[in-house]
């Protein structure tokens, strides 16, 4: 069957078997191997990407179900050669060792901060509660996300001159949504 969807802002299409999982479509057909494939039971969360602006487990979505939808993967976090603050946070705070869980962790972190720019530690831990890391004990992942919250990306075109002059970033806009 044919599927068409938007991935990282670009329209893509492909011929697939109905049983193909979204994670395999993204990795094998589109070559976007940043999204990882970890388990068969929806437990590990390394396959997390965004579907219509929300993190989902792409091993638990058929590619056919994503037909007509918008997908965003970890490859889209970097902008013009500059890392997203979430990516930078993982660098600064040693948020990974082996790195296998990292793409899923970062996609959830970006979504969390977009909706809740100043999350508590409990809110961060709840957001990543469906994702497993076997290296860090989560402590450094939480610190990485906190670092990103403290260093929001400065969008040059949207920075009022007063802020730019003072070298400060305006607070990120966005509805404050409690994350459960």
């Amino acid at each position, binding site marked *: 069957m044919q599927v068409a969807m938007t991935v990282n802002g670009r329209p893509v299409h492909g011929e697939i078997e109905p*049983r193909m999982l979204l994670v395999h479509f993204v990795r094998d057909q589109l070559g976007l191997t940043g999204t990882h494939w970890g388990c068969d039971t929806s437990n590990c969360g390394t396959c997390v990407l965004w579907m219509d602006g929300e993190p989902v487990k792409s091993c*638990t979505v058929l590619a056919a179900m994503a037909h007509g939808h918008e997908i965003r993967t970890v490859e889209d976090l970097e902008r013009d050669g500059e890392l997203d603050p979430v990516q930078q946070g993982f660098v600064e705070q040693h948020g990974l060792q082996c790195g296998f869980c990292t793409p899923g962790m970062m996609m959830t972190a970006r979504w969390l901060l977009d909706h809740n720019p100043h999350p508590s530690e409990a809110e961060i831990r709840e957001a990543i509660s469906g994702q497993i890391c076997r290296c860090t004990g989560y402590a450094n992942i939480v610190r990485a996300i906190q670092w990103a919250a403290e260093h929001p990306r400065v969008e040059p075109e949207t920075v009022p001159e007063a802020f730019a002059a003072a070298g400060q970033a305006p607070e990120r806009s966005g509805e404050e949504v409690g994350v459960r």
Partner: protein
Amino acid sequence: MIPARVEYVAPHSVTEAVGALVEAGEDAKVLAGGQSLLPVLRLRMAYPSVLVDLGRIDGMRGVREEGSSVVVGAMTRHSDVIDDPLVRRYAALLASATATVADPQVRHRGTFGGALAHADPAGDLPAVAVALDAEMVAEGPGGRRTIPASEFFVDYLQTALEPGEILCEVRIPKLDGEWSAHYEKFNRTAQAWAIVGVAAAVRRSNGTIVEARVGLTNMSSTPVRARGVEAALAGASADAATVADAATRAVEGTNPPSDLSGQADYRSHLATVLTRRAVSRAAHIG
């Protein structure tokens, strides 16, 4: 693993979906959010011939008010149920329990109707449906019918839905005014299934519990309504000792399973403890 070969259809209306189910025969499977079904397919525990995906049927999503009921479309996602103002006001128990289902990523895809039709005794929402006297509205080749929650859950992973029938929406009688609610879930790790869960809604007036509804998760092959606890709480004093005493009746009429998460006697103990906690939280005691 990758699921076995399967055909896939994505109808745009319930009528089309019922037609597709009937045409495909008994090996067809309804696909809602896929958060339970897709793991089952990946583990090759099921080999359906056709998946009928309800994800393109817009009319099956959303929450509306109809007289004395809140009506939740079967394809409404958990994340939308949790934040819905009608659910929060009139069916707070559902919001409380849904917030504990799996994890945020799963709640972005999993649906209320899918979780009910899957009928896993360890699932959190069947006990809520039973406690709130919800009514399941199903559509099949013979038209629509309404099934009370008390008759919907037949056995382990089995519901009263007939072949060719689809759960379309769930009608939940409003609990308003002095009602408050809490879902108490016990598991050992994040995102794990409930070893036991207790859904409690309480109507409290000053120092008295006027009325209570209590449903139990994973204490039998189907969700259980804890009628003994409810009887003990009706008209009782809203204090810790009274609630603890009433909670000892939680095991009445249950047949808890024994598995790797716990033996039956352990579950019976948990049911008593968690009932006390759930009712106390709901009634703002302690």
